[in-house]
């Protein structure tokens, strides 16, 4: 199915798009049919900057195992970093 369930986040980030590095202001996370990844459904992440146009985008498509391990790794890296080292 084309799922309509989408997590929408406001982010402070940069991403390397086809045009080079851009500021990313939005992120969406969802499960749906991937464009390129060979699976019926996949976990998708888009980083976007709608103010710069539709091509200001970094997209990822992955299977469930990869997504869960990625999420775990992100949290582990943050938890293991020395306190106060990240700019917030």
């Amino acid at each position, binding site marked *: *199915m*084309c*799922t*309509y*369930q*989408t997590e*929408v986040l406001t982010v402070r980030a940069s991403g390397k798009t086809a045009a080079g590095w851009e500021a990313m202001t*939005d992120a*969406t996370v*969802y499960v*749906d*049919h991937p*464009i390129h990844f*060979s*699976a*019926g459904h996949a976990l998708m992440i*888009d980083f*976007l900057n*709608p103010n710069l*146009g*539709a*091509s200001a*985008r970094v*997209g990822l498509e992955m299977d469930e195992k990869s997504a869960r391990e990625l999420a775990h790794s992100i949290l582990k890296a943050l938890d293991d970093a020395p306190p106060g080292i990240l700019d917030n």
Partner: protein
Amino acid sequence: MTHNLKTETISFVGNQGDEIEGYLALPTDVPSHGSIVVIHHLPGYDESTKEIARRFAANGYAALMPNLYHRLAPGASADDAAAIARNAGGVSDEQLVGDVQGAMHYLQALPTSNGKVACIGFCSGGRQSFLAGCRLPLDAIIDCYGAFVTTDSTPEFPLSVRGLLGEIPGITGQVLGLFGADDQYPSPEQNNELTVALTAAHKPHEFHTFEGAGHAFFNVDRPSYRPESAVEGWKIIMKFLNKTIGEHHVHLPN
């Protein structure tokens, strides 16, 4: 037979008078033809759906696919436009119906049109095709595995998608539904519920459920493709169109 055809990207008037983009595929060797509006799936105005439009033209029908995301991302690639549309909450039912209505009027105004128009959609477009058939005077409505036709989306979904059972009285055309037995969105139980509702409302319809097929079995680019079901499904679609919007196709003299 395979008809000669031409394709072009056009601009036409969609919902609320907006000029939007569309992909038009026309048979060029028939004196008149039925027409079909092709609704792209949530991943967008993409190459695989343009190929479907060309398939209809090769079978003697004019086909027009509105770019439902044109307003949000004019000129963008299909995947980028789909990402922007999802971020913005998707396309409302009202906008969809307005865009399909504009496409219907464009097709009916073609000098070779026989006046009859069908609508088809796959996946999210399946629900949207059914929706358009409830609100517009379409001659034929084809729903390929559209979810949320009989049920509402759950409250946490950012885009509210309503079930359409209450709109069935508005249907004027014949309905064709094509589904996979292994699909849960929509499930066979939901498709049965839809059959019961259409029968109760005296709406002509035929549903086909393919064993061994799940969701998106027509999609040749994806692992969900089931060639036997898809080949049979296309035969059913063309037979249905011949019955509802077709006519005897005669080659124009050279």
